[in-house]
């Protein structure tokens, strides 16, 4: 095919910016996605994640910057010239073609003599063989989703782009498809780039997650690392829940920083804080906080609060506790004991945590 660019290797975005008039959707992004990895772009709507994806697909061209796969520069090339395929948010199946013809569309355009058998294999992979003769309108959302996946996978693209592919599915189906997608990715070994606003989806599937906000990548890393040690206020709040409080760093005590957060002295490991002086946003994850009626013996890192709400969740109990600072903290206690801690709204409790679990991020960001 004329103009088609064969390319192999990691996906590289180099200082990519995309503006629409005055609005900068993607602001100077540098990104390397290793070949064969499952990569998630996570962010709220309007953060630029879909625009980034569309620039990789060739459906948008960057205002400045380059898009490369390995050594091949794809900037400026048309979508049909790129070894990249997309699973669209609304699936975008061809309504006038059967499922079989939808899946065979790509191979046929590339003059593949085995288009039919490859389409059959791809349908097999997503377990949709028995629907090959139907039209898209005769399938459910989950089935259409599988077909959209097969239609992209059949081409063995160097990079597969998934634009909120599970957004339209109900929770149960979404969970199933998460496992399914991960299985398929492992099986075919292609680079998957998954755009989503669902942090749970990103964390369960991806090897690497990049959190985007306002056109920039706030932080990138393995899901567990991002969750354990967020580096910005945005990441702390967007990825899971975080109990936070703004304070001032007052002293350094060996490996620890001591901060005054609304009159309470809290410790943060130096290595777990992005700032070492001045204002800091202190944070600790809900499941790292212990709720007890009595003040614990080891002094420090404990705060007295008033229980506002108790929700029994089976495996765990979740508490909302009003803090002296005015904030409400969330605590998540596993129900390990037969006799649960019998707390009711209005009870005074002590919250405590291991200082090694706390983190500090810049207060103004």
């Amino acid at each position, binding site marked *: 095919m004329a103009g088609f660019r064969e390319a192999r290797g990691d996906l590289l975005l180099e200082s990519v910016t995309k503006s629409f008039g005055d609005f900068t959707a993607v602001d100077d992004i540098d990104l390397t996605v290793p070949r064969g990895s499952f990569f998630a772009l996570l962010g709220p709507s309007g953060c630029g994640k879909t625009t980034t994806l569309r620039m990789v697909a060739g459906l948008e061209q960057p205002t400045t910057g380059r898009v490369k796969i390995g050594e091949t520069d794809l900037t400026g090339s*048309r979508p049909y010239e790129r070894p990249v395929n997309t699973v669209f948010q609304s699936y975008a*199946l*061809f*309504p006038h073609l059967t499922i079989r013809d939808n899946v065979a*569309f790509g191979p046929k355009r590339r003059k593949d003599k085995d288009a039919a058998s490859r389409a059959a294999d791809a349908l097999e992979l997503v377990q949709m063989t028995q629907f090959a003769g139907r039209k898209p309108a005769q399938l459910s959302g989950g089935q259409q989703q599988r077909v959209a996946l097969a239609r992209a996978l059949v081409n063995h693209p160097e990079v597969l782009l998934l634009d909120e592919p599970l957004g339209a599915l109900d929770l149960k189906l979404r969970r199933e498809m998460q496992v399914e997608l991960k299985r398929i990715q492992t099986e075919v070994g292609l680079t998957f780039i998954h755009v989503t606003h669902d942090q749970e989806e990103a964390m369960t599937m991806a090897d690497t997650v990049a959190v985007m906000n306002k056109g920039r990548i706030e932080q990138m890393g393995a899901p567990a690392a991002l969750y354990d040690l967020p580096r910005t206020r945005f990441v702390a709040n967007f990825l899971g829940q975080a109990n936070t409080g703004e304070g001032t760093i007052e002293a350094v005590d060996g490996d620890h920083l001591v901060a005054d957060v609304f009159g309470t002295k809290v410790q943060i490991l130096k290595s777990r804080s992005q700032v070492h002086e001045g204002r800091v946003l202190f944070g600790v994850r809900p499941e790292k906080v212990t709720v007890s009626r009595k003040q614990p013996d080891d002094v420090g890192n404990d705060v007295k609060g008033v229980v506002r709400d108790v929700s029994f969740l089976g495996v765990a109990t979740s508490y909302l506790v009003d803090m002296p600072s005015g904030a409400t903290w969330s605590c998540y206690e596993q129900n390990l004991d037969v006799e649960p801690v019998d707390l009711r709204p209005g009870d005074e409790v002590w919250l405590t945590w291991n200082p090694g679990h706390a983190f500090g991020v810049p207060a103004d960001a």
Partner: protein
Amino acid sequence: MSALAQVAGDPAVDPVAPAPETQKRSWTAYLLLLPGVLWLGVFFILPLVQLASVSLQSRYPGFPGYYYRDLNFQNYVSALTDYAPHFARSFLYAGLATLLAFVVAYPLAYAMAFKAGRWRNLMMICVVAPFFTSFILRTFAWSQILADEGWVVRSLDVLHLLPGGQIINTPVAVVAGLTYNFLPFMVLPIYASLERADPRVIEAGGDLYANGFTTFRTVTLPMSMPGVLAGTLLTFIPAAGDFVNMELLGPQRGKMVGNVINDQFLAIPGGYPVAAALSFTLMAAILAMVFLYVRRFGTEELV
């Protein structure tokens, strides 16, 4: 999303719905249908039956304008044998006009749907604007435009592109008039189906290695087929029965079947039965053609 729509649509056929509810609802349905049914019954079905009866009547010899009830199939024989060339011309001119209208309308509708941006509404107004003046007036305007002294003929003359030296009073003028007059009926349905197409589906064509033209041929055009089908029918059917364009723009000889029906009814004494037979034949022929056409190109399975 289609699953959702199905669920939402289901309660209407819920078998356990309370009976009185259903009864009330069905009465409402009949009540709502009543004006339309009455109107069609009085102004369409009855005249049609009347016309069918006239088409089989015979005239009293020596008394032009008087008929008696009969089963005179000779009217149909004469309609088919005497006026076969007129039928052929009607279908040829209407077919050409439909084809031309399609060729003009598709790019226009495409531009309106995908490229017009903020000009879209203005373009829409321009397409619909001719409806603000009467059909007859517009056709008269074309007789001016295509007149021998008009700028079109003169320009073509200067360029030596007009061997006959005339456009008006030729079949070319008739086809041009038909094309112009029915153009909006072609543009609007095509525009509607293109406008409704999900742009992501068209993008998907590009994403799956189809270049611009291939995407158009394999995705956009097939997706707009319901509009093309509706547009061609809305153009061909009235064009095949039209007589105004031929009357005002066409030659003296070589009329279309619409003109024959018009003349038989209004100008020729005692022409009613033949005119009625011609009308029925035209209707049957168009129905048959439409049926075959829809069978061949029908796209009901499309969303």
